[in-house]
């Protein structure tokens, strides 16, 4: 079922352009929500999602990746920043919210709670198109054809209820539901994490097939680094609400620029019983996002930290042709002893 994509900006235009996105939560709120402490779940992040790519997003608890996903979906309102979809600002007259929602869809982690237990599978999938004006008969037909496409025989599955299906089957239904609106971008928030390993592989294959067939763009959030490397073209690493590194997948995995990325990657269990990990790359737990460390947020656990790191917040810097990382060791003249010497001629 080929999809007509409404190209606005052309192939070079990023599909999603995020600038300065911020989301803050108040916690221990008073009666009307005025809180004592502020939690900067997402703190002025910038990144692009290119057309036709899969952007992997990794990070540990408190890094803000799930919050980012929900803000991108406009399920929670952003506090600051700009979201441009194919060059248009979301919510502007050129791109109303409802239209944006047709083009961006999400698949959640919990396959069971993502489906209304009182609706049949078919009805759940057909709901989205009907909201956008597709007549019922046509929406149902589309639902059935999508069920077939995700590997669930419509005759057997269309009239069933979610509780009759296994986790893997439900997740396929969720994927079909996301596709029903013919979106251009799908955000997968730990979409395969709750599945058994053997089923996970099937669903990943399905996602890759669908991406090719429908010309989709994916944002793939996961804590499983192996899976992220496999599916992603580029990978973004988040820590405490900020982007610490973003770059081409293989490059990032083989030569991480940011110390956190390096630590995260070496935390992956080795699959070699003769060469086991001897030392944990990072000690302690990720700090609480309520009171993040000053300056570079990672400096409290970084083996390369120096006093300058507590004072200056690093910005994303081009460390290589396809790689950017936010670390003071990269920009020349940053003040860190490991940074390359400044290129500017000495004054005076």
């Amino acid at each position: 079922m080929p999809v007509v994509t409404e190209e606005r900006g052309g192939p070079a235009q990023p599909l999603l352009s995020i600038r300065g996105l911020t989301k803050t939560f108040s916690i221990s709120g008073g009666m009307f929500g005025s809180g004592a402490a502020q939690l900067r779940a997402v703190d002025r992040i910038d990144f692009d999602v290119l057309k036709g790519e899969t952007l992997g997003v990794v990070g540990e608890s408190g890094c803000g990746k799930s919050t980012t996903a929900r803000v991108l979906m406009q399920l929670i309102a952003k506090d600051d920043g700009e979201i441009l979809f194919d060059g248009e600002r979301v919510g502007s007259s050129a791109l109303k919210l409802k239209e944006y929602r047709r083009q961006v869809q999400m698949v959640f982690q919990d396959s069971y709670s993502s489906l209304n237990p009182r609706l049949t599978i078919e009805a759940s999938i057909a709901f989205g198109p009907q909201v956008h004006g597709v007549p019922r008969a046509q929406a149902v037909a589309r639902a059935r054809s999508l069920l077939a496409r995700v590997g669930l025989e419509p005759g057997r599955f269309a009239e069933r209820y979610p509780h009759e299906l296994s986790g893997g089957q439900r997740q396929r239904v969720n994927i079909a539901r996301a596709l029903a609106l013919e979106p251009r971008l799908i955000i997968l928030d730990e979409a395969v994490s709750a599945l058994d390993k053997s089923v996970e592989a099937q669903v990943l294959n399905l996602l890759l097939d669908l991406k090719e067939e429908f010309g989709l763009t994916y944002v793939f959030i996961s804590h499983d680094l192996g899976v992220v490397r496999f599916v992603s073209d580029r990978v973004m690493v988040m820590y405490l609400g900020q982007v610490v590194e973003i770059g081409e997948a293989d490059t990032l995995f083989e030569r991480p620029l940011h110390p956190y990325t390096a630590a995260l990657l070496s935390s992956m269990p080795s699959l070699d019983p003769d060469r086991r990990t001897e030392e944990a790359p990072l000690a302690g737990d990720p700090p609480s996002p309520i009171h993040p460390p000053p300056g570079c947020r990672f400096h409290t656990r970084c083996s390369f930290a120096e006093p300058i790191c507590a004072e200056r917040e690093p910005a994303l810097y081009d460390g290589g042709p396809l790689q950017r990382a936010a670390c003071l060791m990269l920009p020349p003249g940053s003040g860190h002893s490991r940074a390359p010497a400044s290129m500017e001629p000495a004054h005076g």
Partner: protein
Amino acid sequence: MVDAVMAPSSVSRAAEAAPASTEPLVRVRGLKVTFSTGRQRVRAVDGVDLTLARGEVMALIGESGSGKSVTLRALMRLNPERRTKVEGEITVAGEDVLALGRRRLSQFRGGEVAMIFQEPLLALDPVYRLGDQITEAIRRHENIGRSEARARALALFERVRIPSPERRLDAYPHEMSGGMRQRAMIALALACRPRLLLADEPTTALDATVQIQILLLLRELQRDLGLSVIFVTHDIGAAVEVADRIAVMYAGRIVEEASARDLIRTPRHPYSIGLLKSRAHGALAKGNRLVAIPGAPPDLAALPPGCAFAPRCQLAIDACRAAPPPAIEVGPLHTARCIRTAEAAALAAA
């Protein structure tokens, strides 16, 4: 000093343990566990044989419905008594677990065998400080004074590498971070110096950087204290980091058992091979697809008569579907329940 306090009773009981050094710590033969829920009877574990030597770490790998958690719980008789029927033989440290009386079972749990769980928040009492929970556990098993118990609790916290242990003893579980709570739970489990530690997916809910810390801690404890561990997980990577031996379970049976090295290098059961091959790892070129096992884990209430994996196995022949395959020895200390291990070997090499 810390180690002297921490050493399991096996070391202090070295005298009486003289001939036991070669005898396995855990011996399970023909374990069958059946749950009756209303009208349905489900056989969660169907004939499991397990042997664990002292100081050894074994990992039980499997997906949902494999029976790995049920097997683990059976070792401490933690399955709900009324609905569960346990058959077979379970011997831990020379004691017949299934024949233990109430009092002896109570001492056994914690004193000989202890368990850590996936979610510490559910296992730790939220209204008591951690130090109190540990001292209470110690004093229930041994007749020592409060200050001595507290000193042991402090030593335990140091042993599991909780920073500022003195202060943390007075903390409540919700005040600690995930990794810290897991360490606290390990400390609680080790409080009465058990010989066997059972771990039920202890790192599944943890972040990657914390997971590796806990896995290394478990290895360290095993090495320093001579602790034996049975570790249940669905993550092969975690199993390889910690385990000496790995047993793969499917639909209530152990389908392959080998040393960690042998299982990774030369798997012989089609299911193990499928699991290993379906792992996404970076070496796969972009644009390829994963080699996935078709189908889904079976419904335990409706198992096929022959090999439970046959419906999903590409090597299955009629003989496979006729009767459950016996355990074939395919190498030193390496068994697989499959009648086509030679073909499977060819598949693995492909």
